[in-house]
């Protein structure tokens, strides 16, 4: 099985995930990381415990007078929950879709530049401007240097990439602040597959980069 990740989301990100206040795309990326990271699952559980205390200490807002009676009348109603989507697509031979992404894609890559494939994800509840996609970068391939107008969060699903801040392998998370620039490249050996959520458009640097801008679809 996958090794445990070494690059984790910030405490703030984990806390907001526990609180349910992350944007939908970022929440998916964090969920993909949590599937492989017991340390961050524990951090989220601590956040949920904090949420419990905050809830218990909330002042009360009265409900309608008949609210309890209406709930009691509904107790034996069957629950209408859609079944969990089947495992389905593979992203590469032997690489299953993270559970968090099931039902969101058929796993078909679109080639957007030499050595670069992309799957746009239509994430329910994503806000306008929020962009969620899978990126597959051939071994050794370098992405154009780009900056971020909004925050970006990435979880590596397979292979490795490197940027100025280090090397990221399966399960690792990289968070980029708005305004930061980076130029990631896939490490040699195996294609690097990442799940990425951005909030706000990218700023591509240089002419070539701007020509390649369609690769991330913005």
């Amino acid at each position, binding site marked *: 099985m996958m090794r445990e990740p070494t690059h984790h989301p910030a405490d*703030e990100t984990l806390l907001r995930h526990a609180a349910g206040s992350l944007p939908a795309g970022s929440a998916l990326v964090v969920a993909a990381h949590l*599937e492989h990271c*017991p340390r961050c699952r*524990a951090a989220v559980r*601590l956040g949920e415990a904090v949420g419990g205390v905050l809830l218990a200490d909330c002042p*009360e807002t009265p409900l309608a007078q008949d609210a309890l009676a209406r709930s009691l009348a509904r107790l034996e109603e069957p629950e209408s929950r859609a079944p969990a989507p089947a495992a389905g697509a593979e992203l590469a031979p032997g690489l299953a879709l993270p559970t*968090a992404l099931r039902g969101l894609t058929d796993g078909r890559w679109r080639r957007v530049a030499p050595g670069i494939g992309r799957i746009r994800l239509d994430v329910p509840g994503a806000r306008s401007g929020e962009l969620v996609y899978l990126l597959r970068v051939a071994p050794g391939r370098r992405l154009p240097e780009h900056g971020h107008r909004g925050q970006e969060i990435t979880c590596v699903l397979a292979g490795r990439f490197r940027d100025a801040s280090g090397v990221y392998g399966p399960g690792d998370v990289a968070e980029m602040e708005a305004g930061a620039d980076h130029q990631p490249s896939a490490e040699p050996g195996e294609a690097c597959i990442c799940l990425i959520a951005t909030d706000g458009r990218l700023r591509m640097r240089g002419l070539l980069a701007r020509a390649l801008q369609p690769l991330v679809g913005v």
Partner: protein
Amino acid sequence: MNPAGPESSEAPRDDAALVLAIATRRDRAAFSALFARYAPRLKTWFLRSGTPADRAEDLAQETMLAVWRRADSYDPGRAAVAAWIFTIGRNQRIDALRRLARPLPDADDPSLAPSAPEAPDDVLDAARDEARLRAALRDLPPEQAEVVRLAYYEDRPHAEIERALGIPLGTVKSRLRLAMGRLRARLSQPASKGGAP
């Protein structure tokens, strides 16, 4: 993070008994008692998270219905009742936002945990004790408590929160890191002086 009333250290134990009564006997009186305690607080919670008033009322009721249906999955060894209800309410709200009857997968679902089972965790064990966690939260410096609270109630990026609080970029993040480090440190101490004074 209101000061805890004198009864609040008792409540968690009672809550667990109520959930157990629902799980084992489908006890409607126990449900009514839990409803009285949590539904009005859930409604406040949803309102603070930006949910419109009529939806907040619906979500509070839906959450309590889910508490009834899932009572037999409550594990007192994993979470305090308030934390368990909190996560159910959080997922109800997210589902409603996504218009999908499918929450994010439960990170604690054993089928999602391919790595070794979780090691015993002193911090989480202590966090199950609501009174202890409440005391640890109350000990946070005010500026750290504030960023924790904002992470729960404000559905917006921390850059905006920083603007709202008038503090430099990156400060929310570093304050939260300090706050969580402090919480973990407090909770990993022996329990002797835990609980409300």
